[in-house]
Every structure is written in structure tokens, then in C-alpha cells.
């Protein structure tokens, strides 16, 4: 079981020196630092815990001298080492041959360290792993038979800020550290990519956005809504129009994305998916004949709310970590925005250049909107009635 706790910084020695040691349940502290194919291990075990198992206090005077400990270091190692197995890629890592400060039969360097409840044997050694260390498995069994409340507090130090920790004991002796996803930056990058991928391959979102943007480079030729258009007089007005639509869409789907991911609002996916198809139909038909009231940015906002639920379903499929919820939500949304901007960047210059042409108004706006509406119509039927009409990824 992982408790996500972070090992806090060492306390001032003064505290430990003046105040007597604490009574506390038994813990051991393990730090694992993987570098290349090697793992440097530091393992601190209380002398108080080793004594009953190994009989360190030979003269039974209730105190341990350094001599009593030093003369038994080989036995301490022989006792401890089999109690923790570290493996990479399914193969156990073995102590590197050069170790043990040169002493025969030993693999570790032993010093002493003070913790709040007394003196610990601080053992350091290097393990060599046969396979590359992508995933590190720790299996910890120390004192399981003599003290089931003993815990091994294991910290992975993967360099930089990347630390993770786990509390291991008899009920939960194993922990897998995945070094590939240990950094927050890595998590963020992963979710940004997911977000871009989702809009890039989510044809329904692209078509919806394009349907809304097609008229951005045009202005109504009349004010009655008969569907007659003319090219926009300048880039500024057209760009402001695009910006309004995109911003409204982003704002809306961000809201419902968050609400759905946090389980504040949940809708059945069939409703969401067919709703999204419906928004595409309405947005494209609206380009031919005005069927939607209000300005297009308002339409983008209202329909964007529905698309947000679709993004949330995709994000939940990817799998969210509870610890990195905010981070993954942010990353995913950022990815969606990046994808959206890329579409706008590709669309706008071409559309703006063609805005005065008859081609744009006669061929692109009408027939393209029509085709989009047709495709979306098929999606709607498929999604609403759970049918499979065409092999189109949507």
C-alpha cells in the first residue's frame, strides 16, 4: 500500500541529542536510487529491532557497544538481505561484487545513524540489475513473523524532484515503482498528448468547430436570414469572430469536462454521444438555412457544454490518477486547446483568402455543410439507436 507520504527533511540533531529517544512502533527506512542498471540502496534498521533476533547484546547489560555491533555485521547482512527483494523487469537485482568496504563476506558499508527512537544500522550497498530499470519491484518481508506492525518506509529517489514513497508491511509487502511515469512533468506531457490526440482524431469535434467557423470569414448579405453571404471586409472582423467562437466553445467544454471528471454531473454516454452528433447537424445546417437563434458564439457555448461531456468520457478512459487529478485535467484540456488552435490556424488563412470567391460561398459553404450534416446524421442514428452504419472513427 502506498501512502504517498514524502519523507521529511532530517531534523536538527540538537532535538535528538537533548531529548531522549521516542517509543514508537518499529519502522525501517529504505532509500532506492536507480542509476543506469544499478540501484544504490540505503537501508536503516533499528539496533533495537535487530537485537532480539540476533542477540547482539552478548553481555546482556541492556546496552550495545560498537564492538558488539561491529563484530556481527556479517550476520546482520545475512539476516537482512534476503528480507527485501528488488527486481527490474521481473529479474531480481543482485548485490554488485565490489562492496562491503572490503570486508570478507559482506556486500554493504555499515555506519550508524540516529533516528527518533534510537540508533540504526545504516547499511548502504549497490544492486546490479540484469534488465533495464523501467519498473522497479520491491518485495519487503523484514520482521513479518516477529512484529507484524513493522513497516518498511521505502522511498524511491529517481533524481531531481522525482521521489515517491511507499509504506510496506506484512499485509502489503509489494510495491511497484514505475520510473517511466514518476515525474509530474511527464504526467503533464502525457495528458497534453492525450488531449491533442482526442481532438485530432475526434472527427465530430473537428467538424463541429469547422461548421461554426466556415461563416466566420463571411458576413450576411442581408439581415433576414435567407442564407445569402458575402466575404468579410477585413481580417480583423473575421478573426474576432473566430476568436469569439473558439473561446466560447473552450469555456463551455472546460466547464462540463471538469464537472464530469469530478463526478459532479454525469450523463449517460449514449445521450452525450448522440447529443454531440446533433450539435454537428444543427451547426452545419445553420450555415445553409438559419435554424439556430442567437449569435454563433452563443451557439458554440451552448453546444460546447455537450462536447465537454464527451471529452470527459475520453479522459476517464485514459485513466486518471487521483493524486495527479488536477494536473491531468489541466494537461488534457491544454492538449484539446492546442489541437483546436492548430485546426483554426490551418483553416483560417485558406478560408480568408477564398472568402470573396464564388467557390467558397457556393461550393464550400453549402455542399460541404450539407455533407457534414449528412455524416453527422448517420452518427446520430448510430449513436442514438446503437447501430453500426459506417466504419468511421468518431
Amino acid at each position, binding site marked *: 500500500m502506498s501512502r504517498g507520504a514524502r519523507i521529511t527533511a532530517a531534523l536538527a540533531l540538537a*532535538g535528538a541529542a537533548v531529548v*531522549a529517544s521516542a517509543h514508537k512502533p518499529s519502522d525501517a527506512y529504505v532509500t532506492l536510487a536507480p542509476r543506469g542498471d544499478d540501484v544504490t540502496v540505503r537501508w536503516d534498521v533499528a539496533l533495537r529491532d535487530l537485537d532480539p533476533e540476533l542477540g547482539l547484546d552478548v553481555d546482556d547489560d541492556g546496552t550495545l557497544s*560498537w564492538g558488539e555491533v561491529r563484530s556481527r555485521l556479517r550476520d546482520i547482512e545475512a539476516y537482512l538481505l534476503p528480507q527485501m527483494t528488488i527486481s527490474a523487469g521481473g529479474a531480481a537485482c543482485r548485490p554488485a561484487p565490489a562492496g562491503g568496504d572490503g570486508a570478507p563476506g559482506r556486500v554493504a558499508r555499515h555506519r*550508524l545513524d540516529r533516528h527518533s527512537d*534510537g540508533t540504526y544500522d545504516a547499511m548502504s550497498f549497490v544492486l546490479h540489475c540484469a534488465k533495464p530499470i523501467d519498473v522497479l519491484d520491491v518485495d519487503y518481508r523484514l520482521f513479518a513473523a*516477529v512484529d507484524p506492525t513493522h513497516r518498511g518506509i521505502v522511498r524511491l529517489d529517481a533524481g531531481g524532484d522525482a521521489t515517491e514513497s511507499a509504506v510496506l508491511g506484512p499485509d502489503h509487502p509489494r510495491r511497484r515503482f514505475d520510473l517511466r511515469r514518476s515525474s509530474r512533468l511527464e504526467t503533464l506531457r502525457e495528458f497534453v498528448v492525450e488531449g491533442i490526440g482526442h481532438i485530432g482524431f475526434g472527427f465530430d469535434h473537428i467538424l463541429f468547430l469547422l461548421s461554426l467557423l466556415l461563416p466566420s470569414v463571411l458576413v450576411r448579405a442581408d439581415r433576414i436570414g435567407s442564407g445569402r453571404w458575402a466575404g468579410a471586409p477585413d481580417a480583423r472582423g473575421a478573426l474576432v469572430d473566430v476568436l469569439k467562437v473558439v473561446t466560447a466553445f473552450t469555456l463551455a467544454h472546460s466547464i462540463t469536462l471538469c464537472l464530469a471528471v469530478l463526478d459532479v454531473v454525469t450523463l449517460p454516454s449514449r445521450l452525450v454521444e448522440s447529443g454531440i452528433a446533433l450539435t454537428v447537424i444543427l451547426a452545419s445546417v445553420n450555415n445553409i438555412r438559419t435554424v439556430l437563434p442567437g449569435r454563433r458564439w452563443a451557439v458554440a457555448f451552448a453546444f460546447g457544454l455537450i462536447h465537454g461531456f464527451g471529452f470527459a468520457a475520453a479522459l476517464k478512459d485514459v485513466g486518471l490518477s487521483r493524486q495527479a487529478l488536477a494536473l491531468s485535467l489541466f494537461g488534457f484540456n491544454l492538449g484539446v486547446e492546442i489541437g483546436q488552435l492548430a485546426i483554426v490556424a490551418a483553416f483560417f488563412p485558406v478560408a480568408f483568402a477564398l472568402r470573396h470567391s464564388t467557390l467558397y460561398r457556393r461550393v464550400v459553404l453549402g455542399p460541404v455543410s450539407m455533407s457534414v450534416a449528412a455524416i453527422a446524421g448517420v452518427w446520430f442514428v448510430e449513436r442514438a439507436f446503437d447501430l453500426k452504419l459506417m466504419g468511421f472513427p468518431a
Partner: protein
Amino acid sequence: MMARRRRRLPERAWRPGPGLAAAIAVALLAAPARAAAAPYTPASDEEIVERLRERPLEPADRELRTLRQALRAEPRRLALAVAVAQHCIGIARRDGDPRYLGYAQAALSPWWSEAAPPVMARLMKATILQSVHEFDAAVVELDAVLQEDPANVQAWFTRASIEQVRGEYPKAERDCARVRDLGARVHGSACLAELRSLSGHDQEAEQALQGLLRENPDQVAWLSLVAAELAERRGDVRTAEQRYRASLAAASDAYAKGAWADFLLDRHRYDEVIALLLPEQRVDALLLRLALAFQGRADPRRDDAVAALQGRFDAARLRGDTVHQREEARFELHLRHRPEVAAGLAQRNWAVQREPADLRILLEAARAAHRVDLMDSARAFVVATGIDDVRLSPTAR
């Protein structure tokens, strides 16, 4: 962390036999820390690097060694395992050392995860669980014991003790009445008297306890402690002090020392607290009181004590322990001066245990942090139980 005082039945009240007369609520005092500095290598073999015990081996320690050795040879001998567990729990209580609770659990390991372990193993398991504040799990075990053996006085008594700690006074009264009716008259009556007092019937409780004290001079240690706490809640300082002194003179454990230290701290008698607790720093509930006394008389040792306590709470959090929340709330409120943090801790603690000390820190922290919601919870408890305690502010009473 410092759990309720021990509640032990005299051997005659025990049904399974004299061997089982172990402690019930053990003063569990964990207090770890990562006060690691830099690793070092001692200069010479003669250098003393660790002190394993503060006192010479006592007969109980030697007996435990023999028993554990025997148990290693025959780990499935129930009577032996229960004897080892009892000894360990006794030492954990005497020294406030939770490692011994781990050893007790290890002794019971052949039965620990069984669906239907023998009654004796189950009772021991419940005791250990209670000691680490796993109250729900402990009650499950006790219910099972009582199902199988409805006349098990110790199980009724332990369950009453948990219910009392949780502030479930009517339930606790029912169970205490069973204890009395099943033949453990002194324990049942004292337990009922304490509950009457907690429910605001001090006069009645006072009379009952005085009677019990007269008739049972051999039980002076814990009867006086109950009576001292009652007098303190009533504001009868002189009587409370006499009774604390009588109790501590007869026997003392970490719980009794803690209660007495709190009494002294409330009266700004810091030097007495320091003299009492200077040798007790291993137990962090007592180190907390010592730090408060240092602070009260502006003693420079305060900072070291605070640093050590912080280290212990940090280490406890690392392993996921939450048994120290009452002490940690006091630490945050009075020593670190962080009322919001203290209120959060006091609130989480209140969800687990509801003794007068828990009520007091809940109110103090809530008031300092302006947490009206917590003040309301505390007031609701006061109204529901009728508890009367002069140490609570007038706003709460």
C-alpha cells in the same frame, strides 16, 4: 495515542482462568520521528551506541523471554501464545512502548487472520486493536466473543470501555451493568459511577466512588484516578489533587502521569511537571506535557522538545499512524500556534474518540480557529450527554 487508562479486571473475575488477567486498554504511545542526522562510524569498539532499556530487567521481562523461547518451539500452543501476548501488552503499557504490541500480535499470528479464532485469542486481538484505536475492528471481535460466550466479563468490560471512549454513554452503561451483574461488582460499579459523572450526575457518582474506595483499599490506584478526574471536572481542586497523589503513590502508568501533569499545567505548576516528566520523554504524550511546561516557564529546553515532537509526529505520519491526533492537535495549538491545523486534527480525532480531553482540545482549537461548525459539534455533544466540566469554556457549557 495515549489511550484510555488501563482497565483490568481482577483475576477472580476472569472466566478463562488466571493466566488471562492481562491489561485491557493499553496506554499506547507511539512516537516516532526521522531525526536522522548524518551517518557516522564510532571511534572505538567501547563506545556505547544504544541503550536497549532504561531499567534493569524485571521478573516480567525474564518471564517473557522464557515464554517467547517456548513459543518459538511450539508456535501453535494457544495458552502459551496468549501468555506471551499478555506479557507483551503489560510491558507495552508499563513502558508506553508500542513495539510490544507488535510482538503480542506476532504471538497470536496463527489465529490473527482466522475467521473464527478461539475466544482467548480473540479477546487478546480485541485488546491489541483497541490499543491502536482500531475501535470498530475491536468491537467486531468483542461482539463475536460475546456471541460465543455471553458470560465473558472481560469482553463486556472492554466493550464498555470502548463505548465510553467514543462517548456512547448509554451503551456503555448497559455493558457496565452486565459486568456488575456477572460478578465483577467493583469494576462494574466503578464503571457505572464514572459514566454517571460523565453524564452530569456528579453527586450520585461521587457517593458511589467514595463507597467503593472505602470498601476496596486494594484498588486505590485506579479508583482514586477515576475519582480525581471527577473532582477535577467539578472544579474541586483540593480533592482532585489529594486523589491524584493517592493514585500515583499506589501505582502509575503513562495515562495517570499524563492526567496529573495536565492538572498541574492548568495551575501553572510547571516545575512539578518538569520534575515528574523529565525521565519520561520516550512517551510522546508525556514529552508533549513536558514541552508545555518548558514553554510555561520560558525554559530554553522548550525548542529541543518541540523539534523532537515534530520529528515524532512526522515519523508517525510516514507510516500512516493516526493514533496521535489528540496530542498533535495540542502540539499544533499550544506549541506551534497554528490553530487551523490544530482544529483539523482535533476534528479528525473527535471522529475516533470522545473523552473529556478530546472535547476540550476540540473546543479550544475550534475557538482559536473560529471554526463555528466544530463549536456546534462540541456543544451538541455537551447537550446530548449532559457532561459538565469546568475546564470547558462558559460558551460551551
